[in-house]
């Protein structure tokens, strides 16, 4: 599995392959949008505004998942010093940032009709903003620290610190009184969402995941090219 992400394998990656999975993504997202907007029923109390969930929840999942990946890769980078591995984290960061922003914006749009306000500084929302800042700092470190080795170490340390924020986001709704409701989908018990609403949610999650993979593969290839070129030019 890991061998497929080695630099030479990625450089040999055919753009036809990316086109293929892009086609699958468009199909999945098309089905997901149709399902979530027209086929799935409105909620018994929230009505049609529940449809925001089909974008909000997958975005949040991927935002957290991407940062978990970046954090784990950063630990591997700091401990094992595997060359190129941090480029994987670097190429995934913008995807996570975009989905964090999507999650916050859709959450805000959803908050107005349900809670009655756009924004509240409760634990879940605040920790999500902190995640957004971590993404910004992580990406800016790569942008502004020119020396590759330095940027590699600093960004990895930032990612590892940010990793501690993830359980806080996840469990904030259980540990403290928050305006945000507890998780509907948990590993331990049956989902609190009716299956007619769960299916479009999962379809959208698959669609967003394929999108993330496509962007990741494209960026990762470019990052490796840049890295190899820099080595030849002896800039670093």
């Amino acid at each position, binding site marked *: 599995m890991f061998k497929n992400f080695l630099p030479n394998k990625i450089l040999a990656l055919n753009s036809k392959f990316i086109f293929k999975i892009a086609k699958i993504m468009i199909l999945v997202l098309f089905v997901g949008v149709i399902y979530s907007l027209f086929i799935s*029923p409105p*909620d*018994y109390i929230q009505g049609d505004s529940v449809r925001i969930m089909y974008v909000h929840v997958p975005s949040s999942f991927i935002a957290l998942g991407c940062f978990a990946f970046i954090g784990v890769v950063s630990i591997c980078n*700091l401990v094992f010093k595997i060359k190129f591995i941090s480029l994987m984290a670097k190429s995934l960061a913008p995807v996570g940032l975009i989905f964090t922003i999507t999650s916050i914006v859709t959450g805000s749009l959803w908050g107005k009709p*349900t*809670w*009655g*306000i756009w924004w*509240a500084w409760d634990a879940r929302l605040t920790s999500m903003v902190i995640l957004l800042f971590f993404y910004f700092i992580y990406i800016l470190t790569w942008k502004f620290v020119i020396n590759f080795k330095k940027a590699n170490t600093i960004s990895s340390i930032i990612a590892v610190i940010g990793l501690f924020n993830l359980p806080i986001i996840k469990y904030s709704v259980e540990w403290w009184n928050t305006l945000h409701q507890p998780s509907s989908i948990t590993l331990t018990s049956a989902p*609190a969402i009716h299956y007619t609403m769960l299916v479009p949610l999962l379809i959208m999650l698959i669609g967003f995941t394929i999108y993330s993979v496509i962007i990741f593969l494209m960026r990762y290839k470019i990052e490796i090219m840049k890295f190899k070129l820099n080595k030849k030019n002896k800039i670093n």
Partner: protein
Amino acid sequence: MFTQKVKLRIIYSIILAILASAVLYITLKSLEENVVYFYSPTDIYNKTSILSNTTIRVGGLVKEKSINKKGTSINFVITDLKNEIIISYKGLVPNLFSEGKGVIAEGKLKDKKYFVADKILAKHDENYMPPEVKKALEDSK
């Protein structure tokens, strides 16, 4: 399997992770007062001093058959099934505000049983289902 250097780094990072978690836990524990978004009626009941001049939030469930509307002003009771607090409010309530549902009131405490709100927020739970399913559930009760 690993060289001595890598082994040291692994041990070092594990110790760091444990210590950092401990620091984080202590910090969050001591900041708990500020992290909670609202107090429950029981929290208010257990408070020794009444903060009558600061704006706070009280949350819980709207007690069944407690809503009393008179023009634009509304009175109701927030309960956490142990303690209760009477809320008085003037203005519009959110659409999701109803009996038996979660609610958060923002305002000032007059005494331990009486709260004047200047903002009402609806809090919804994690259950999502179509109206027909809800109806079927209620019919089967």
